[in-house]
């Protein structure tokens, strides 16, 4: 049992294992999208949990079962927007202490390179936070998670021309914000 249709049917019957499979298949994607949106690891985890709670409760409303991921991302986007709006002025909460353990795994990198990577992450995170929420969502789904415009339109409900415009602006803004850092990095 691994097609979306079967899994959804299983969840509707109350099969917890089916829901666990859905979670296993999609939670990383949803978590990363939310991490991109809110920029904070623990909050992204909480919001991932909230997203799947809502998904479980509303599994009966999935219209196109093959598009489960888009549906989940749609919920995640609402959850993220709600969280961001309920914490006005807290968009600057992003701290430098949220770097990843993964950096330590690469023993081949010098400490300087590792520090630069950590800095780069902070720069990207700050740049993402500086984008408005719609552009940020589009940028994450398209550039970071490589969804098609059609899929993003399903998640956001925006028209494709608006998505293209938003993405174009988001990219320009991101480049403007991270280019100075990249130039310094390239000189080293």
């Amino acid at each position, binding site marked *: 049992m691994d097609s979306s249709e079967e899994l959804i049917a299983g969840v509707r019957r*109350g099969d*917890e294992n089916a*829901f*666990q499979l859905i*979670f*296993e298949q999609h*939670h*990383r994607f949803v*978590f*990363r999208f939310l*991490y*991109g949106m809110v920029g904070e*690891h*623990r909050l*992204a*985890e909480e919001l*991932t*949990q909230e997203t*799947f*709670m809502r998904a*479980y*409760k509303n599994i009966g409303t999935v219209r196109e079962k093959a598009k489960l991921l888009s549906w989940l991302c749609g919920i995640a986007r609402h959850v993220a927007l709600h969280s961001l709006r309920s914490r006005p002025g807290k968009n600057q909460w992003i701290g430098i*202490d949220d*770097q*990843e*353990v*993964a*950096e*330590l795994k690469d023993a081949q990198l010098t*400490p*300087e390179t*590792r*520090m630069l990577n*950590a800095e*780069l*992450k902070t720069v*990207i*995170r700050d740049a993402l936070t500086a984008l408005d929420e719609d552009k940020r969502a589009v940028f*994450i789904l*398209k*550039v*970071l*998670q*490589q969804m*098609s*415009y059609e899929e993003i339109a399903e998640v956001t409900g925006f028209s494709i021309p608006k998505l293209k415009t938003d993405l*174009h602006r988001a*990219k320009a803004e*991101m*480049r403007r914000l*991270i280019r100075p850092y*990249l130039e310094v990095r390239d000189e080293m």
Partner: protein
Amino acid sequence: MKCEACLGMMDQLIEGELDGSLSREATAHMAMCGPCSQLYANLRYEQELFRKYLLEVEPAPALWADLRLELQKEKVIRPSQPQLRLQRWLAIVPGGLNVTPKMATALVLITIGLAIGIMVWRTTTDTSGREPQNPKVAGVQPSSEANHKDTHREADITDRQLAANDNERKIQPSSTGSPEKRSGIQISAPGGSGIRKFGRSPVVPTVDQVARKAEQQYLSAIEILSSDLKRRRATISPALLSQLKTALADIDRNIAATRRVAREQPRDPFAVQYLALAYEKKLELLREVTSW
């Protein structure tokens, strides 16, 4: 194709949204044009940097256990089958039985009788259990001739012990490498070294008790490695030390989250496994740093 047209299509090309013929034209142009080719390489590099930023983040392994707990709290997820059966019984018994005073008296008498019967039976089995029937029984298969007389009782005890041992083995942290290098923690089965003992059966610890014992062992190992790390602190560069602090803080956060779930669901072996994994990760990191 001219440079202007190529530049206009570059984003679409990187996103994979350009159709076949245009994509081929743009690629052919870049093969001939240094500046366009350089710009394309830069844009791709940026894109990879952005992607890497998200791909490297991982949610905590305890996320599912946490979610499941939340769903249970909100009574969205149905309890497991045994729980359901119990609930049905509890729902049926008080309403379904019309207990008269005579019936109540009879029930009380039956309960007292049963209690006395069980106490007498326990006393006799305990007495026979203390007798040194066959000291060689320990470590011998239950089907051997020596303990054939008590096959039923012993088999029952063996099954219970095996089940308990299995439960415990599930949360044994993995331990690889030589024992000198790695101090992997082993939770031994009751009775030690896996030898089954008959006679007076030892108290079988619960999953929670075993988990707490394992946690203590992990904490002791972590303490030893942490003090080792403190001694070596001066030899580690400040940048690396800062990253190490961050990594340890992340792992500690994960440990706290998994511990919370394990405490809330003390009988859930998955929650305990996740906690053991989180501790194991911290141990691994400390081992790696102290072995430099």
